[in-house]
């Protein structure tokens, strides 16, 4: 009944009123419209875009070997430990390099690590969760056993263990060093959350009418999962992506700080590690620069992720 009367306002007797409401909107259009109304979320989105553009810019300068701005982070621009001035906004480090340029370059490292870690964790978590939820039975039990086991190991220890073990290993002739081992470690350890979520959703969806209809047309299992169920749970993947991104950035900082990350190029974690010795001497700017960089991207991602969840998750809409 609800479906039949959708789009038309009813009066108390249940008779259609003449005025037609705007046409029904899909989940995505509706979600985007809700999102656009939140000013804070849009500001956050702008900040995230700035970081992403910066990352893209640094990548491009590296590919084409342009000698501009952040690509010249290892250039000596002044004497050692120059305090912030108009010339060098964040001062210089112990080798006289511009802290501002290092921070910009660190953006690329952090964002790439978080991006690849997300891709790996979604790439493992989503298929496993979908398979477990769809087929159930023995496959489900094995996958559930696997992620229960993994999740019973404290997260930080698991990341450390992976990072420690993967460092310096050679896989298919490719030596795992620097950020590669970092994002592999983060990615391999953090798929449990999304796997559990997707499994639960797929279990709920697999007996819905639309799936039964698809099956009655003669769709195969893989087609049902990929073309029918996954698009219907896709908002969960997006929300999880944006909220876990923050965690990955912070994990990269801690791993780099512990000496398990990037050594040769500047990253935010390495900058904080350097500042550990500099801060007692009163050189506060490198630490501050890294903190500010991390703070703004985390804040923006947190606010944007929450707004995304509020606007895309149908369950939260009633409020």
């Amino acid at each position: 009944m609800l479906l039949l009367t959708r789009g038309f306002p009813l009066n108390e007797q249940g008779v259609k009123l003449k005025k037609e409401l705007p046409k029904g909107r899909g989940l995505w259009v509706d979600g985007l419209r809700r999102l656009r109304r939140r000013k804070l979320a849009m500001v956050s989105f702008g900040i995230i875009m700035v970081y992403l553009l910066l990352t893209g810019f640094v990548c491009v300068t590296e590919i084409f070997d342009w000698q501009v701005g952040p690509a010249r982070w290892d250039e000596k621009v002044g004497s050692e430990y120059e305090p912030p001035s108009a010339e060098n906004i964040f001062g210089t480090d112990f080798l006289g390099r511009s802290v501002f340029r290092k921070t910009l370059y660190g953006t690329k490292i952090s964002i790439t690590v978080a991006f690849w870690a997300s891709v790996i964790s979604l790439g493992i978590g989503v298929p496993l969760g979908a398979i477990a939820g769809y087929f159930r039975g023995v496959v489900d039990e094995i996958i559930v056993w696997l992620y229960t086991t993994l999740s019973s190991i404290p997260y930080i220890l698991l990341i450390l263990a992976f990072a420690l073990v993967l460092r310096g290993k050679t896989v298919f002739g490719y030596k795992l060093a620097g950020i590669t081992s970092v994002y592999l470690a983060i990615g391999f350890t953090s798929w449990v959350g999304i796997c559990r979520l997707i499994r639960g959703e797929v279990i709920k969806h697999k007996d819905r009418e639309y799936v039964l209809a698809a099956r009655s047309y003669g769709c195969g299992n893989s087609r049902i999962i990929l073309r029918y169920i996954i698009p219907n749970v896709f908002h969960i993947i997006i929300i999880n992506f944006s909220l876990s991104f923050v965690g990955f950035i912070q994990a990269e900082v801690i791993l780099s700080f512990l000496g398990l990350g990037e050594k040769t190029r500047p990253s935010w974690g390495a900058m904080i590690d350097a500042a550990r010795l500099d801060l007692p001497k009163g050189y506060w700017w490198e630490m501050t620069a890294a903190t500010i960089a991390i703070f703004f991207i985390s804040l923006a991602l947190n606010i944007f992720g929450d707004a995304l969840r509020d606007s895309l998750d149908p369950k939260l809409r009633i409020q």
Partner: protein
Amino acid sequence: MITYIIRRLLYTIPIVFGVLLITFILFIVVSGDTSVEEAGKSASKETIEEIRKERGYDKPLFLSWDSQFIKHLKNTLVFDFGRARDRELIIDKIKRGAGPSLSLTIPMFLGTLIISVSLALVVAFLRGTIIDILAVLLCVAGMSIPFLSFILFGQYFLAFKWGLFPVFFSPDLTMVQYLALPVLIGIAAGLGGNLRFYRTVMLDEMRSDYVRTAFAKGLSVRRVLFKHVLKNAMIPIITRVVLAIPFLFLGSLLLERFFGIPGLGYLMIEAIGARDRYVIMAMTYIGALLFVVFNLITDICYAFVDPRISLE
């Protein structure tokens, strides 16, 4: 009830086995034979051979009665982790570190819990007002500052510059003296996330009918908040608390490093620096085991409290 407990107990066996398998694959199979690295640069052939024997690298990985996997199972189950690089038994190191770690993490945890739950009650009551919105914004801002920055700036300003606290641990200080600052920093850093979580929990409760009834009966705000809402919000709070306990034993990696507290976090940092994977393996296993045990306790407690729960 008894059958439930027995089945729940049996369910932990594959999990513990899984943890053993993962630690084995990670630390023994993937890491490979590190006897050369362990022996040092100028070690003789005999020393390397001796280390290989002690660690069992000369045995097959699986598929044999004296294989490395069987040895790993047997040793780890009885908490025999072998010796660390400095030839001390790893289990002794862990026992020694547990005390300082717990004396840091327990006050930190209790402080965060009490402050954030009581603040959450207030904020949830004021929902929708400017104070609530500000509090949520502050929480998100607090969550966005990296933990390392909290520690570094806290240590620099409060201890180093203004001299309110001692900068580092030293044996002649009293416990309160050297723990005060790390505990304070830990609480400040953890407050944002916790307050936001408990606020959500409280808000869910505030919308319930019984709260409206209680207000309609004319009960005072304080009575409704602390008698009715808090009691009902206890279930998610207790779950979070019980599942956080295993992490208390592991100490705080970063806080212990910065303040030189000789706990388990410090032990791990040292092990990472020395690439001593056996210490990390022991900590991983113990951490996982504690988590499994406390998970079991929570589930059994639930079964006692809520008769509807049963294991499928």
